[in-house]
């Protein structure tokens, strides 16, 4: 398997290079933002003396380039640094937050991915008939409504009116039994599922329809294979690549794009941590969150690429 090893090494090296670029971009972004961390920490109660003292203590008087490289150096050794605002170790704070976010994303994915693919297959089976139209209509509507509004609507009906679930995820404790944790995140998971369902469902439907119309499927049918063999041996392998691609994209979204959901449902994940840190100009935390988000995004896309290559003999055995 030397080709696969080479492929992996190439992709990982490219990913790391991309991460480096992203870190520089994030740093530049935080520098451009108006105001600094000292001002944000002290807020309206800032006096010039207190500001000057805090700036000196936080090392904000050093040039930006120097701050960037000292941070990058720490990162190489696995040290994410300490938060400017609270003085706590970022690695420790992020570990808990990240595992919370991954927990939410994991359960949302467990519900959303099989459901989306199942609905996609169902839509293909009843193509252009009412089940297809109903599935498309509902999922497209749910992707078009802003996610915070979906959150509010679910909160109102299932949290306040029916009282089935907690309206917010504030009851979530990382060390609680699994069932309690699932109870606490029921509504955020439902919201996330509604948000990502349409994209994956539509893509599954389109990819399989596309393959089913190819000449070789017709050939396979003509040479007498039954429909199960047609789908299993001929249609499915050719539809894997686009489906995996869109699934990975949505998994990445479940980790990276949940900021609004986390804030609305008061879920203690990375998104909430990032939002607070951006508004307080806590550059090291923003950097750390940004790098982790970028790594998740690049990593999942890399997996999608590799799966696409491996599932396609023409790419697996180039001339």
């Amino acid at each position, binding site marked *: 398997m030397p080709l696969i090893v080479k492929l992996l090494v190439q992709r990982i090296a490219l990913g790391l290079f991309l991460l480096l670029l992203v870190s520089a971009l994030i740093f530049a972004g935080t520098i451009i*933002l*108006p*105001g*600094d961390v000292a*001002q*944000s*920490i*002290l*807020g*309206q*109660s*800032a*006096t*010039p*003396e*207190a500001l000057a*003292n*805090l700036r000196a*203590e936080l090392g904000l008087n050093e040039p930006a380039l120097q701050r960037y490289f000292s941070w990058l150096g720490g990162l190489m050794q696995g040290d994410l640094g300490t*938060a400017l*605002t*609270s*003085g706590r170790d970022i690695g420790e*704070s992020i570990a808990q937050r990240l595992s919370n976010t991954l927990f939410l994303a994991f359960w949302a994915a467990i519900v959303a991915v099989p459901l989306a693919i199942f609905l996609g297959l169902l839509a293909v089976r009843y193509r252009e008939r009412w089940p297809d139209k109903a599935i498309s209509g509902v999922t497209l509507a749910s992707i078009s409504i802003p996610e915070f509004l979906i959150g*509010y609507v679910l*909160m*109102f009906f299932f*949290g*306040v009116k029916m*009282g089935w679930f*907690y*309206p*917010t995820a*504030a*009851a979530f404790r990382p060390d609680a039994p699994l069932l309690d944790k699932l109870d606490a995140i029921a509504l955020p998971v439902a919201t996330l599922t509604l948000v990502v369902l349409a994209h994956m469902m539509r893509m599954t439907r389109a990819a399989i329809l596309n393959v089913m119309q190819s000449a070789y499927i017709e050939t396979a049918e003509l040479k007498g294979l039954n429909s199960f063999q047609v789908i299993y041996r001929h249609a499915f392998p050719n539809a894997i690549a686009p489906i995996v691609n869109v699934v990975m994209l949505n998994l990445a979204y479940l980790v990276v794009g949940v900021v609004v959901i986390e*804030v*609305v*449902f*008061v879920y*203690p994940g990375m998104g*909430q*941590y990032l939002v*607070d*840190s*951006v*508004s*307080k100009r*806590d550059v090291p*935390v923003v950097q750390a969150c940004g790098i982790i988000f970028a790594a998740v995004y690049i990593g999942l896309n890399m997996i999608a690429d590799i799966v696409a290559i491996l599932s396609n003999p023409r790419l697996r055995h180039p001339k």
Partner: protein
Amino acid sequence: MKDQLHFLARQAATGMMSRREFMGRAAALGLTAAAANTLLSSKVMAAGPQKGGTIRVGLQGGSTTDSLDPALATNQVALSVIRLWGESLVELADDGGIQGKVAESFSASADARVWTFKIRQGITFSNGKSVTAEDVVQTMDRHSGEDTKSGALGIMRGIKNVSGEGDTVTIELDTPNADLPYLLADYHLAIQPGGGKDDPSAAIGTGPYVLKEADMGVRFVAEKNPNYWGDLGNAETIEYIVINDNTARVAALQSGQVDMIDRVPPRTAKLVGRAPGINLHTTSGPGHYVFIMHCDTDPFANNDVRMALKYGINRQEMVDKILNGFGSVGNDTPINASYPLYTEFEQREYDPDKAMFHLKKSGYDGEILLRTSDNSFPGAPDAAALFQQSCAGAGIKLNVKREPNDGYWSEVWNKQPFCTSYWGGRPTQDQMFTTAYLSSADWNDTRFNSEQFDQLLLAARAELDTAKRTQMYADMSTILRDEGGLICPMFNDFVDATSDRLAGWVEDAKGFALMNSYAPHRMWVKA
């Protein structure tokens, strides 16, 4: 019938009958809902506080970046957490006066320059160490040192020396200040063992609760301090949950996930108050929403331009539409009836003719640019649009520019000559004027510079005769109203809500939101 009603009310108050059942039976006896409610709450109060249980509170304003160090507290959540574990020397009382906390009593020299505080005997920190005068001296020192980051630095600047001997602490001031106890009631100045110099974030103090769990910007849990000296604190456990999203906070209260929330949005407050099992509480406080002009920048350097704008704003319309009635009209001074030495004077009204007269007199006929943002106060862009309309009626061309929320406090407020903003207010006139209207104040956000005003402020501090001080503050308010750069259309009420599970809300207590953040301590879970 009267006896029967009181019997029913007592049953409801002690939990032998549900509130809804009581209201129904009271109605059957011919009592209006409002009267029944009043009767019920008076019975609940009379039944006395119940001890034990858990009170969950949904609060707005917390952030992951917060610290437990009281010196760095800037928001409602940080303040509420300090209230759990810590106490200052003194605290505001319900009537607007001062009550002793760590200090049992205090007295001033005849010229209000030297103050002595007597430390309460036999009280201990939650780590078991007893409180000494030295702890107080060290706490003051930590907030006033050259290199401090404390939010109380502005307060400490007027203090020349703090010394402790036995059980008394003596504070010497640079200039006399009759309001010193009000300054020391500041929540940043919670007394910590050794001044908190070793570990400022240890959350060890003399408060009625002991902090058990702290997850910044997420959740705080505290349990009753068994060795607390006073009778504050009814619930066994208090849990603060940070819910910054308005809709989520209200939903959490309605579903019973929390028992109490702060900052109910004025727009939906009336609906929330009508929901079953929810009680809405409004407190009129010193907080106000403002339009601020720099008195040293053209065209606002001309007082006639300032007066034209002051006559060009419709205050009642702002209270009705921006606050939905949860507030009161302002009078272009930061002072209202919630201050201890308040004098009422003539209310300024919307008057397009006078506005036009002043604008003509000023000779300025260009456009005026007003900057605003969503976070400068709730509904600020809408208020700016209303202002624009009322100004148009007076021939004033007001342009409104919407600025981003992010960076508003560092780039626009206190930098640009005309913008929207808010003030939380202070417990005394002296503090409010010193913070923002003294010509040398750090946050003189209107660039106001009046020699007469500054002199009156210093003179009032040294004046121990209440009648004379009241007159001085009235004069100062008049100066601000007629010459200042402040347009203050409205004072916002604090709007909080509690569920039926709790009792013990004290109406008309002076101070800030949630009974000055003591509602979780003073209310109780109904048996």
